[in-house]
C-alpha cells in the first residue's frame, strides 16, 4: 500500500476515535514524565474536554451516509453514531463524577485513572463501529482489560483487589467462550467480516451446518451476556460493583453495558436474521429467540428479587442494573420495527437516571464512609434538594410516569406488543417484576423522607458530582415530559436499517 492509497481514505469519519486516542496517548505520556508530586487533577478536566470534543465531532456526522473504510473493518452508520453518542456521553458524566471521587479517595494513580477510562472508551467505540470479528474482539478486549485494572485500582483495598481478580477471571472465561463462538462463525463462513459471514451462512442449505450455526449463536450469546450482566453470566456483577470504586461501577453499569448491547446487536443482527430457521417461514434469529426471552425473563426476575434484601446500596444498584439489562433484552427479543429506537431511548434514559443516582450515591457514601442503606436516613432533613434529585432518579428507575424511565419502558412495552408475534408473556413478566422493583426503590425513599437522620451535618456538593446531577435531573425530566424531541432527533438523523446495507 502506498501513501496515496492511505491518504485517499476518508479518515475524517474516524475523527472521534482519533480524538480519544490522542488524548489517551498524550495523557499517558505526560503522566509518565511528569514528576509524581504534581497534582493530576487537571487530567480529569482535560479528558472530559476530549470526550466532549469527540462527542461534538461525532454529532456533526449525524445524518451522513453509511461508509466503510480499512477493508471493511471500520463502519460508520446510523447505529454506530447513535450508540457511540451514548458511550461518549456516559463516559463524560463518569469522568465528572471521577473528579469529585478522586479528590477524596486513596487512589494514587490519578493520571492512570483517566487514561484507562479513555482507553476503555476507545475500545467500546471501536466495537460500535466495527464490521469485523477481529476488530470487534480487539475492541472488546481493550475495554475489558482497562476495566479489570480500573476495578482494582485501589491497590490497598482488599475489596477492590478481590473484585478485580474476580472480574479478570470471569472476564477471561467469558472471552474464551465468546471466542469459541466466533471461531465457529469463522469456520462456517471462512471470513471474519460480518457481512460476508451473514452471506455465507445464509447460503448454507437448511440442514447443512445447522448445528454449528445454532451452537455459534448460543455460545456467542452466552459469552456476550457477560458484558451485559444478564443471565446466565450475571453473577459477577454484584461482587464487582461492590468492590470497585464508585465511578468505575458507574462506568461498568452504564458504558460497559451499553457496549455489550452494541456488540450483541451488531453481531447477532448482522448475521442471523437472514439465516433459515427451524421452520421454513422463520429466520434462525426468531427460532432461537425463545431461549433469549427465557434469559431475559430470568434476568428481570433474579435481578429484582435479589435486590430486595440488599442493605449495601452498591449491591442494590448492581442488582437493579441486572434487572435493567433484562428489560433491555426485551426489544432485542421482540425484533420489531421499533427495536433500535426503544433500546437507544432506554439506554439514554438509563444513562441519565442511573448515573444521576450513582452521583448522589457518591455524595452519600463519601459523607457516611459507608455504603449501608441507612446512609439515606433522614436525607430530606439534611438536604432537601439532593433528596428531590434522588427521588427523581428513583422514580425514573422504577418507571413512574413523568420521567425518562417511564417513557423508555412504555416504548419497550409498545414495541414488544406490536411485534409479530406479540411478546405479551415477556411484557407481563416485565410488568410484574417492575412492581417488585417498586419495593426496593421506594424503601430508599422511605429512608430519605421518613426516617430520622443520624447526623444533621450539612452535605457538601463537590463540583463534578453536582454538575452530573444537574445534567441528569434535566435529562430525566425532559425525556420524561417531552420525549418527542429526542425521538424526533433520532428519526430525522438516523435510519437504522442502514445497518444491513453496504455489506
Amino acid at each position, binding site marked *: 500500500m502506498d501513501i496515496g492509497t492511505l491518504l485517499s481514505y476518508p479518515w475524517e469519519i474516524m475523527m472521534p476515535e482519533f480524538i480519544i486516542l490522542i488524548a489517551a496517548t498524550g495523557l499517558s505520556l505526560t503522566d509518565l514524565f511528569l514528576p509524581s508530586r504534581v497534582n493530576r487533577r487537571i487530567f480529569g478536566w482535560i479528558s472530559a474536554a476530549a470526550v466532549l470534543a469527540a462527542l461534538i465531532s461525532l454529532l456533526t456526522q449525524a445524518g451522513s451516509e453509511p461508509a466503510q473504510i480499512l477493508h471493511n473493518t471500520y463502519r460508520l452508520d446510523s447505529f454506530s453514531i447513535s450508540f457511540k453518542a451514548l458511550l461518549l456521553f456516559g463516559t463524560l458524566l463518569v469522568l465528572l463524577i471521577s473528579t469529585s471521587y478522586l479528590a477524596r479517595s486513596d487512589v494514587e494513580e490519578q493520571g492512570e485513572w483517566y487514561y484507562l477510562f479513555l482507553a476503555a472508551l476507545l475500545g467500546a467505540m471501536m466495537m460500535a463501529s466495527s464490521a469485523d*470479528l*477481529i476488530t470487534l*474482539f*480487539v475492541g472488546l*478486549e481493550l475495554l*475489558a*482489560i482497562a476495566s*479489570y*485494572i480500573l476495578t*482494582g485500582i485501589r*491497590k*490497598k*483495598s*482488599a*475489596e477492590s*483487589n*478481590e*473484585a*478485580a*481478580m*474476580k472480574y*479478570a*477471571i470471569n*472476564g*477471561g*472465561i467469558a*472471552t*474464551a467462550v465468546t*471466542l*469459541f463462538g*466466533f*471461531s*465457529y462463525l*469463522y*469456520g*462456517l*463462513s*471462512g*471470513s*471474519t467480516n460480518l457481512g460476508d459471514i451473514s452471506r*455465507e451462512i445464509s447460503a448454507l442449505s437448511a440442514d447443512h*451446518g445447522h448445528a454449528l450455526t445454532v451452537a455459534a449463536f448460543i455460545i456467542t450469546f452466552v459469552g456476550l451476556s457477560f458484558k451485559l450482566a444478564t443471565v446466565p453470566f450475571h453473577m459477577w456483577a*454484584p*461482587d464487582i460493583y*461492590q*468492590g470497585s470504586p464508585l465511578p468505575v461501577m458507574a462506568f461498568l453499569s452504564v458504558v460497559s453495558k451499553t457496549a455489550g448491547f452494541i456488540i450483541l446487536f451488531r453481531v447477532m443482527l448482522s448475521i442471523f436474521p437472514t439465516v433459515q430457521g427451524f421452520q421454513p417461514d422463520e429466520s434462525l434469529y426468531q427460532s432461537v429467540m425463545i431461549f433469549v426471552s427465557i434469559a431475559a425473563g430470568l434476568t428481570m426476575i433474579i435481578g429484582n428479587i435479589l435486590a430486595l*434484601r*440488599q*442493605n*449495601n446500596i452498591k*449491591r442494590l444498584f448492581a442488582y437493579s442494573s441486572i434487572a435493567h439489562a433484562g428489560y433491555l433484552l426485551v426489544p432485542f427479543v421482540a425484533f420489531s420495527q421499533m427495536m433500535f429506537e426503544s433500546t437507544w431511548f432506554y439506554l439514554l434514559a438509563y444513562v441519565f437516571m442511573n448515573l444521576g443516582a450513582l452521583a448522589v450515591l457518591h455524595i452519600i457514601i463519601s459523607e457516611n464512609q459507608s455504603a449501608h442503606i441507612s446512609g439515606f436516613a433522614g436525607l430530606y432533613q439534611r438536604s432537601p434538594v439532593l433528596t428531590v434529585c434522588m427521588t427523581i432518579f428513583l422514580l425514573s428507575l422504577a418507571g413512574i410516569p413523568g420521567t425518562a424511565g417511564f417513557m423508555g419502558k412504555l416504548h419497550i412495552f409498545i414495541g414488544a406488543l406490536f411485534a409479530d408475534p406479540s411478546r405479551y408473556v415477556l411484557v407481563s413478566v416485565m410488568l410484574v417484576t417492575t412492581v417488585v422493583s417498586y419495593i426496593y426503590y421506594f424503601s430508599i425513599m422511605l429512608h430519605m423522607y421518613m426516617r430520622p437522620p443520624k447526623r444533621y451535618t450539612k452535605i457538601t456538593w463537590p463540583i463534578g458530582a453536582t454538575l452530573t446531577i444537574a445534567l441528569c435531573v434535566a435529562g430525566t425530566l425532559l425525556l420524561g415530559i417531552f420525549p418527542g424531541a429526542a425521538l424526533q432527533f433520532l428519526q430525522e438523523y438516523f435510519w437504522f436499517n442502514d445497518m444491513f446495507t453496504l455489506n
Partner: protein
Amino acid sequence: MTSVPLNAYLMLALILFCIGLFGALTKRNTVIVLISIELMLNAVNINLVAFSKLGMHPSITGQVFTLFTITVAAAEAAVALAILMALFRNRSTVQIDEMDGMKH
C-alpha cells in the same frame, strides 16, 4: 490437502477446552485457574487455525485472528497475574474460595 480431517482437530480443541473448563471450575488456586483459561484460549486457536486450513471456506484470516488472540490472551494473563499479586499483598491468599469478602 492434508489427510487429517477437520473434526479430529475440532475434537482436540474441544478436549482442551473442556479440560481447561474443568480446571477453571474446580481449582482453588487462582494461578491454576488462570492457566486453565489459557488452555481454553489455546483450544480456540486450534479451532481457528483448523478452520482456516480445512474449513468450508479456507482462508488465511483465521491465522490472523489467531495472532490477535494469542497476543491479547497473553496481555490478559499478565494483567490478571499483576492483579493477583496485588491481592496477595493485601490478603495473603491466592485461594479462590477465600475470596468471599463480599456477600449479599
